[in-house]
């Protein structure tokens, strides 16, 4: 953890008007939940739709993708990463610092608004909202680590991340049961199931599997990203 790198990364992420675009996501979630409050639907069903499908299923991956790739892939793309790599800092320290910024931003932009939206919609009953929030925290961190790794590995990090989130998790996950075991979203949902009262949240993946996979993906992606960053070759524009 290096405060200067963290400060510069955060500035690159939120600087200029980019913060306004990033803020659109939490604002949208809050607006939807305020509107949904008055719809008169079953509250638990509503919470599943807004917190589960919209927030955990769409907004957390999108935020994780933009932030996770934004902390490193943009720097690699415009070549300014060399100035950072030339400093006498261990590469793993650069990766962990950027990961901390990414995870913090993802939590701030998706998990915190999710909690507030949940309180608006459902209150604190049955620990449903708490469960979804913990799920969003865990999956947000895993997404950040995963997409940061993608940013180091490939120039098409955003596309690769989208392909994973949309094609693997949503499209294939909805047809093939087994694909859900390897889906960050489902691991988060499994944490939500464990915390919420019995029978309120249903997840297809067991808690033990989910926890282990979350830890393996988080730590593994970070370690691999450090290794890859140590031997990074900058390629020109294709």
């Amino acid at each position, binding site marked *: 953890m290096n405060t200067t790198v963290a400060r510069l990364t955060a500035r690159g992420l939120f600087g200029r008007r980019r913060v306004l675009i990033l803020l659109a996501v939490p604002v949208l979630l809050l607006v*939807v939940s305020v509107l*949904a409050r008055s719809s008169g639907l079953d509250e638990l069903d509503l919470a599943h739709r807004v917190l589960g*499908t919209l927030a955990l299923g769409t907004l957390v991956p*999108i935020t994780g993708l933009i932030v996770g790739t934004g902390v490193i892939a943009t720097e690699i793309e415009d070549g300014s990463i060399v100035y950072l790599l030339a400093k006498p800092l261990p590469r793993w320290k650069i990766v962990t610092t950027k990961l901390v910024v990414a995870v913090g931003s993802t939590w701030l932009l998706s998990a915190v608004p999710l909690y507030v939206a949940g309180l608006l919609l459902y209150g604190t009953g049955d620990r449903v909202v708490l469960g979804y929030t913990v799920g969003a925290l865990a999956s947000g961190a895993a997404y950040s680590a995963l997409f940061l790794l993608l940013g180091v590995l490939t120039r098409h990090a955003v596309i690769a991340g989208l392909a994973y989130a949309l094609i693997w998790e949503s499209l294939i996950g909805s047809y093939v049961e087994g694909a859900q075991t390897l889906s960050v979203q489902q691991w988060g949902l499994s944490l939500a199931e464990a915390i919420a009262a019995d029978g309120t949240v249903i997840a297809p993946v067991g808690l033990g599997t989910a926890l282990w996979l979350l830890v393996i993906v988080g730590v593994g992606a970070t370690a691999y990203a450090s290794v890859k960053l140590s031997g990074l070759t900058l390629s020109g524009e*294709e």
Partner: protein
Amino acid sequence: MTTRSDAHGGVIHDIGYRPYTGPRLGRRYATRSLYVQSLRAAFGLGRSGRSKVLPFLLLGGMAAPALVMLAIALFAHLDRMPKDYVDYLASFSVLPQIFLAAQAPVLMSRDLRHHVVPLYFSRPATRGDYVAAKFAAMFSALMIVLALPLLLLFTGAMLAKFPVGDNLLHLLYGLVAAVLYALVYTALGLLIAAATPRRGFGVAAIMGVLMISFALANLTYALNGGFNPARTSSSWAFLISPSASVEALVNRLFDLSTDDFSALHAPTGAGAAVFLAVLLALTAGGYALTLRRYRNV
């Protein structure tokens, strides 16, 4: 030959330089070249192997399920395709969306980032021609991605000896849907891609707009009692999302999948006209704003 006195006098000699007097191919040729080059660039043709991987992977991903269905229909002796043409496009709509998100910045952002747009405008092609050529190229590229699986399905239907007239009609419905998808996607994608010189950011922004609007449309639909068949007014919610409104409009226009509960349908009568008007306005508006973007570069 020059003499000493001539040299001092500063004479200019005609050493045979001649201006170009051949045919000038002009503005239309330049626009057409830009179109062809952009269309090739959308599939990574004429570029490095690495930039071909992604567009062809998406094209293949879009066509592969059609091939599988073709094989199933042939060998299992079905009496119709597992998915209808329009339904096919709706089910796999995420692939053309990713194609758009990946390739629209390739067409637009790169020129902006390397500051070559003024070079284009110093040639006979005008700003309008530039935008028109890029729009046409992206539209054609998307049409290839959308129409290829439909044609494969049709070929399969012919091989399996399904009724020709019925299939031809439904193929036409599918192609109408493809044109609408391609128009709206192109207008939105190019507008967003032209706004940013950063490729990664453009990709995320295009996909974010399409995905979040779709999630929002579905949520609004559900919140307003969409799954209650008595309340048809809730289908107005599909207007929020470009892809959902195309699907809903086409399903309503051609009375498709009326018995399917999960298929989207636009409101009847005047509602369908409004959907069409909104889609056309989106396309025209996106195009006009892109033109405006290039008024001063």
